[in-house]
């Protein structure tokens, strides 16, 4: 791919990943390693959320369901059936893909508002289900065999999230797929007239959002060694992912990554110094969402790439194409 070299954002991402590879050599304090591992995890979750939300305009308010499916599938397979770690995580991904199809096929035909309600309701239902089903441990959750190796998990998480980033980057920013999704987001009827099948594309995007989330959930389960409906199927996962994506800038992948780092950084500081005011955290999250929507509709990234070309500019970062620019002026 000749254009790979010229894409500065991709180069930036490669540099960041390479730098992160070296982190465990410099950082020996396990606390900081764990914090960084979690930060990387949230980047991955934000990216996966953006894959659907930013490119199709469909907001999955039940994003945590896939995180939980991945976590629980991995936990159950490892503890009850003795599966090895990576295989169990992969199985979680498959389960999420199936789940996405089941949920997506009926609901993605509908408009965004219905999808938002349906996913919100379904995720809470799944959480309730996990609370009452003994197979998955009910409210007590599942305890996994502890494998306490922070460096190992740092690399696993980094590997998974980096892979997610590059796959999503390729599919959504370089390949036709991403543009097709944006077409459907902008005007579905027009997209249909151009040969695009909206239902098919939306479902593919949904799967593309669900599977990475589940993979991350699976890694999370083994890393944390204990999961329960509250931590893996609770609101906090999707609430935070939503904030990170909106705050960072929807539909750009880079934006959500930046948003994830900023929000997670804030969260860590908050919990370190203001742990007594934990309930305030929800209020702050809500405030950030509300204020971002009102004042920063294109997120933090929007501040950097102020568009000169018109008010509606969700697609702020156009890929370099390698084609010669025309000599004409922009109107």
């Amino acid at each position, binding site marked *: 791919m000749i254009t790979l070299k010229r894409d500065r954002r991709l180069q930036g991402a490669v540099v960041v990943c390479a730098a992160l590879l070296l982190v465990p050599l410099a950082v020996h304090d396990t606390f900081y390693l764990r914090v960084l591992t979690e930060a990387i995890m949230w980047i991955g979750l934000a990216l996966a959320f953006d894959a659907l939300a930013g490119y199709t305009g469909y907001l999955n308010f039940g994003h945590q369901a896939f995180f939980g499916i991945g976590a629980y599938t991995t936990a159950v397979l490892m503890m009850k059936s003795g599966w090895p770690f990576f295989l169990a995580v992969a199985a979680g991904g498959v389960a999420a893909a199936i789940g996405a199809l089941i949920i997506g096929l009926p*609901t993605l035909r509908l408009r965004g508002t219905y999808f938002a309600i349906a996913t919100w*309701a379904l995720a*809470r239902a799944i959480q*309730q289900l996990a609370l009452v089903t003994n197979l998955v441990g009910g409210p007590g959750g599942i305890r996994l065999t502890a494998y306490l190796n922070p460096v190992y998990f740092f690399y696993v998480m980094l590997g998974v999230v980096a892979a997610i980033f590059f796959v999503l980057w390729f599919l959504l920013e370089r390949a036709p797929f991403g543009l097709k999704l944006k077409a459907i*987001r902008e005007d579905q009827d027009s997209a249909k007239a151009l040969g695009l099948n909206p239902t098919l594309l939306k479902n593919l995007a949904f799967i593309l959002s669900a599977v990475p989330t589940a993979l991350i959930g699976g890694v999370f389960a083994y890393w944390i060694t204990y999961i329960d409906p509250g931590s893996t199927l609770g609101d906090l996962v999707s609430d935070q992912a939503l904030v990170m994506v909106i705050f960072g800038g929807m539909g750009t992948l880079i934006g959500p990554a930046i948003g994830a780092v900023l929000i997670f950084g804030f969260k860590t500081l908050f919990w370190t110094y203001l742990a007594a005011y934990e309930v305030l955290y929800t209020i702050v999250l*809500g*405030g950030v969402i*509300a204020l971002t929507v009102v004042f920063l509709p294109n997120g933090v990234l929007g501040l950097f790439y102020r568009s000169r070309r018109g008010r509606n500019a969700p697609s702020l970062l156009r890929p370099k194409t390698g084609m010669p620019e025309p000599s004409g002026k922009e109107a």
Partner: protein
Amino acid sequence: MLQLPQAVIDGIMLGSIYIIVGIAFSLVFGVLHIIDFAVGEWIMLGAFAGMYLNLWTRLDPFLLLPVVFIVFAALGYLLQPVIHRVLSGVRGNPLLMGIVFTFGLTLIFQGSAQTAFGFKTHSIPSRFSNGSFDFEHGDFFLTFSTVRIAGLMYAAVITAALNYLLKHTNFGLGVRALAQRKEIAGLMGVDGRRTTGLVFALYTGISAMTGVVIGTVLSVSFRMGPEYSIFAFFVVVLAGMGYLAGVPAAALLLGILQSFFLVYANPTYTLLAMFGVLYLILLVSPRGLFRKGM
């Protein structure tokens, strides 16, 4: 089997309250075209307001209804310009941004309630709380708890008032015009901004007021928000989004469903069952039972 009629009666009385929730929510959707994720939170805040006012003034919650209405209607009227700004298409999809915004509000309200009011569940005491009318005919025994009857009365009064407002006043005409054709309504002299502001104020006021009633008839806790949001979604999707005439049937159905679960099955499964039904409805007939939704 003797429980069946009682369950139905209780269901209808519960459902009548849900009618109000559904009408207000559907009205906001019809005019502002947003799904207010925070609908359950307005109810919750109203319930807490009613509870504290009752504690401080010792007045019966039903007497406090107008106060709560005015306070929350004012809040809604003040908030509406912000919502208008969000919905004015600064980004590609204003409707979705509207949902995200109200979702943010939900978090703010929930967090605030948890901070201010703590974890306990309460119930607002009322003069009506402990009475009941009993009806006996041989083995047939029905109880009509007075507080639930009061709730039913409330629902009847508000429904009648809203019906009058929408069908027999100029304001209502403006609202209906706005719901159908925003641009043309403007040309006909309907002040879009003001009417929209008033509709939203009406919605927040009514939702909060209904919260007081719910707090009296059932209970109040900071956790009740999402539950009533689900109820509101359920009723409105079942009725058809924006189709007000379908709300009574849908709300009563919900009330009866909830009642049956309380009597015959484990109430924990009520929410699960509701999600299931909601999902199936969206699958089969997303425009609602009557196929008149938007």
